[in-house]
């Protein structure tokens, strides 16, 4: 699939939200779209998904498509299963296949017990699960996710991460926007940045440069580090140090909290050294 010279504006004579966008969307690729609020990410996704036609340029070779919006406050007069089965048919599945897929995806997202609940009575998170299931149930060739993870619980986010990986492995194209920079980290094949109406390809996500703090600490003999340390520090033995001495490297924002946790542990950890390390800028 390919976008050539695509432009999009709202209203005749309105300002261009997107201009001269060229994008290559190969099969079997995971593509991430980034950009500031209001930069036109969602507009780009709507054009890619075929919900809006471009006002300039052309979009070619779009496969069967599914779209998942950020919020799905669907005041629709359906039950969860009813909506998913109907949408499965709209996506081109047969009656039996649609019903089966609807049940399977609700189960996978842990919403099986809401199968017969009306959409208007579902919580925000469960509504979002229905929207995501709608996008996945017909195994589309192109899946467009506009912050689809927002509102999902951690378990469901993992399920969605895995489903996205499966779609890509099956030769589908997945395009996504998410506010979490760590979302599907290391899995995306290409990054696109939307800025001032233009879209440019980036080599990879630029990690945010962050000041870090190195803490050397030693625990009581044979003690394990306390679980769930603040800031999720990188942990290694101190080179040439005594057995039991560890070096923890953590973002500066979490260093005080990490120290507090180590000192508050029973039995307490002994701090040998705290060294700030400025990020390379």
């Amino acid at each position, binding site marked *: 699939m390919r976008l050539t010279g695509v432009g999009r504006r709202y209203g005749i004579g309105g300002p261009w939200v997107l201009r001269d966008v060229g994008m290559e969307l190969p099969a079997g690729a995971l593509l991430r779209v980034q950009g500031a609020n209001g930069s036109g990410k969602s507009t780009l996704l709507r054009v890619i998904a075929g*919900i809006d036609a471009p006002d300039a340029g052309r979009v070619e070779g779009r496969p069967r498509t599914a779209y*998942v919006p950020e919020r799905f406050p669907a005041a*629709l*007069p359906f039950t969860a299963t009813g909506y998913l089965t109907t949408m499965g048919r709209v996506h081109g599945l047969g009656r039996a296949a649609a019903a089966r897929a609807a049940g399977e995806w609700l189960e996978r997202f842990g919403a099986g017990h809401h199968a017969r609940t009306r959409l208007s009575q579902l919580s925000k998170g469960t509504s979002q699960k229905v929207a995501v299931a709608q996008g996945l149930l*017909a195994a589309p060739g192109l899946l467009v996710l506009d912050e689809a993870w927002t509102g999902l619980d951690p378990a469901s986010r993992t399920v969605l991460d895995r489903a996205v990986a499966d779609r890509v492995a099956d030769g589908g194209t997945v395009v996504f926007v998410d506010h979490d920079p760590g979302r599907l980290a290391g899995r995306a094949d290409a990054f696109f940045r939307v800025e001032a109406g233009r879209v440019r390809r980036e080599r990879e996500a630029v990690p945010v440069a962050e000041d870090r703090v190195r803490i050397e600490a030693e625990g009581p003999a044979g003690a394990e580090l306390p679980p769930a340390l603040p800031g999720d520090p990188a942990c290694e033995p101190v080179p040439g140090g005594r057995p039991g001495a560890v070096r923890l490297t953590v973002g500066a924002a979490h260093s005080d909290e990490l120290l507090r946790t180590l000192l508050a542990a029973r039995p307490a950890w002994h701090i040998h050294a705290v060294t700030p390390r400025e990020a390379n800028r």
Partner: protein
Amino acid sequence: MTALLRYQATLLIRSHRWLAPLLFHGILLCIGVRPGEPVLDSFAYAAAVLLPTTAWLVRVCVTNEPPAARACAAAAVGPVRAHLAALLTALLASAALGTACAAVVAAVGAPRSTDHRVAVPLLPATLAGLVAALVCALLGVAVGALCNRPLLRSTAWAVPGTMLVACLALFVWGSPARAALSRLTAGSISGSVPVPLPPLAFAAVLAAGATAVACAVSRRRE
């Protein structure tokens, strides 16, 4: 398309938003159609009432989905087909309503001319009444398609606009609805049964044109 129509029809039925236009239609019909009145006049009246009702049903169908759900359906089948399904659902609902009302008129009306002197054959008269109803339904779809989303998005414009244009479409010179209804009333006076086929063809062309415009615009804006 069948799956889309089923989706839209389920939305329409379960949303209960058809109740208001149905009551509107029913009340006007109760006022205007009396048992024992000349059947062709009653057919003309029933068809005329169907025009604004259909335009209202179109408004119900094209505004039934929340934007997020509309986007999901539009991504699956394209915005043109998604919008077309909404318009077709309204047309089918209106055709069903028109048929039911024609059956009632045929049952209660007197198969006689306006002055009750000439007998009017009931079967051809019913056919003429059905065709007139279809003319008005098609014109109602055209009015509804042009006066609502995606062309007129603000409720403040769309609702009065729909009703005003629907009434105009009944009376304005050159309208196929007016042509069909005058054929029926003229036939009632003379005691003959003219099936208004030319207005039907014209109304079909108008409905197709308006539908094409609305569907094309739905690719560009919400």
